[in-house]
């Protein structure tokens, strides 16, 4: 829950985007995006379809390198670095649509993420926290349900012991009960001190666990502020995202 005080920003935040512009081909998707995520902080990145949320994540990870601006992570300028190097610094990715290696088993999907970063998370510990995955360890991940795949996707990111998790639309395509379960897991992760940048179309859902929130529209940041404040201001959410918000 977002009742607690927001993490106090240290001298330099864990992640800082400054004036990031990113294109797909000749089409500019992100325009001058600046945002920060502090150590252990959960930050929601909200906006409509096509607002640039996923592109922001891809820019951070180096999958779609920015054309302009800088991405700083853990005190280093990582702009333009290849994705694998950024991942090895402890940036975990839980992508939209889970992106399982469908022909590989649950266990193999987890093994792929072991990239030498030591820490509290091991495959064994992931299995202890997500016992369902342990039961399904030999099953091909393409044959898991959507909720199971989402958990495997989160587990896969954890095995690499990330300091920052990029979580993209974790509720997409899942039944309400499963969404509750996924958010319960994210809330638990928050307690372990991992920072999370959470992209979500369902604003209220994300604001429940976020400390702060940014709203993107047309590739620009149009709002930044404490999550609790935004969550309490339904009119503002409606105005920013043009959505009728279920209460």
């Amino acid at each position, binding site marked *: 829950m977002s009742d607690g005080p927001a993490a106090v920003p240290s001298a330099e935040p864990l992640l800082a985007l400054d004036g990031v512009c990113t294109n797909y081909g000749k089409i500019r998707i992100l325009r001058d995006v600046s945002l920060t995520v502090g150590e252990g902080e959960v930050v929601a990145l909200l906006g409509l379809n096509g607002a640039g949320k996923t592109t922001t994540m891809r820019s951070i990870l180096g999958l779609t390198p920015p054309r302009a601006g800088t991405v700083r992570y853990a005190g280093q300028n990582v702009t333009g670095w290849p994705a694998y190097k950024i991942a090895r610094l402890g940036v975990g990715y839980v*992508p939209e649509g889970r992106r399982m290696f469908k022909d*590989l088993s649950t266990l193999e999907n987890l093994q792929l993420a072991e990239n030498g970063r030591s820490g509290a998370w091991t495959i064994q510990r992931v299995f202890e926290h997500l016992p369902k995955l342990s039961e399904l360890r030999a099953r091909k991940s393409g044959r898991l349900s959507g909720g199971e795949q989402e958990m495997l996707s989160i587990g896969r990111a954890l095995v690499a012991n990330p300091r920052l998790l990029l979580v993209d639309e974790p509720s997409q395509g899942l039944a309400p009960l499963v969404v509750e379960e996924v958010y319960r897991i994210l809330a638990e992760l928050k307690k372990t001190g991992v920072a999370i940048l959470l992209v979500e179309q369902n604003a209220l859902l994300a604001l429940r666990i976020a400390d702060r929130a940014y709203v993107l529209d047309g590739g620009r940041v149009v709002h930044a502020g404490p999550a609790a404040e935004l969550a309490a201001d339904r009119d503002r959410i409606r105005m920013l995202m043009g959505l009728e918000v279920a209460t």
Partner: protein
Amino acid sequence: MIEHIGPQLFNGLVLGAFYAIVAIGLSLIMNLTGTINMAHGSFMTLAGYLAFTLVSRGTPFWFALIAAPLILVVVGVVVERTLVRPLYKREPFYSLLMTFGLSLMAEEIYRLIWGPNGVPFSPPKALAGAAHLGFMSFPTFRIFIAVVLVVAIAALALFLTRTRFGLRLRAAVQDTEMIAALGTNTQVIYAVNFGLGIFLAGIAGVLAAGMLGLSPTSGNALLMPAFVTVIIGGMGSLFGSVVGGVLIGMAISLTTLFIPAASEVSMYVLMAVVLLVRPRGLFGEEGIFG
């Protein structure tokens, strides 16, 4: 006629194993990067010439059988890093044209170095002669070839399924970007994968030189059947390549026995029949062309 069927079937198996190992090399490269390596046959030829040069300078055949493919891997990885890699982001057509051009150049270079005609490359004495299997006798060298090719294919299967690197390689074939996002350097995967395919071509090249002869174009003779093998087996399936190779080998051997004039065309007939029944090939699933 009937008494020839046994040996001819075995011939078909050996031939099929050649097609399979070349097809597997092609598939490894094609599955991961979409590169259709038209120079694969030229790489095989080079392995044959390297082994020929080593053996004619007094190196034992056994050593050449390992050393020539290893030297070939070095050449292959250099080619991949400098010529193929810049084309990964373009359509497959570009790398197809580039490797085709490369094979034409290679052919001329082989002509300059080793002469336009075939060179004699015979297997060692220990493998000369025939083995008597009771019901038939069969050239020892061909039995040796069958054993080496089967061991090579089995070793590859173990590498892909039992090692960490093999796991990453299989994952990269499914989603290169995601494997990078999990901290794997995909450029290393590309280079090693290309080297693996070339290593298999190298082993096949040395053995084929001893069985089918060695000339500037000898490797290319195996390239077309290997492509047909990939299509029959199903794109993306290495196991399919093994089955496809053996089927084609058998088809060619048996038609050679009964209708010699049709031996060349038999694999295409087989391909047409398979594609009519299974448009993606015997074991093809999604296929790289959707």
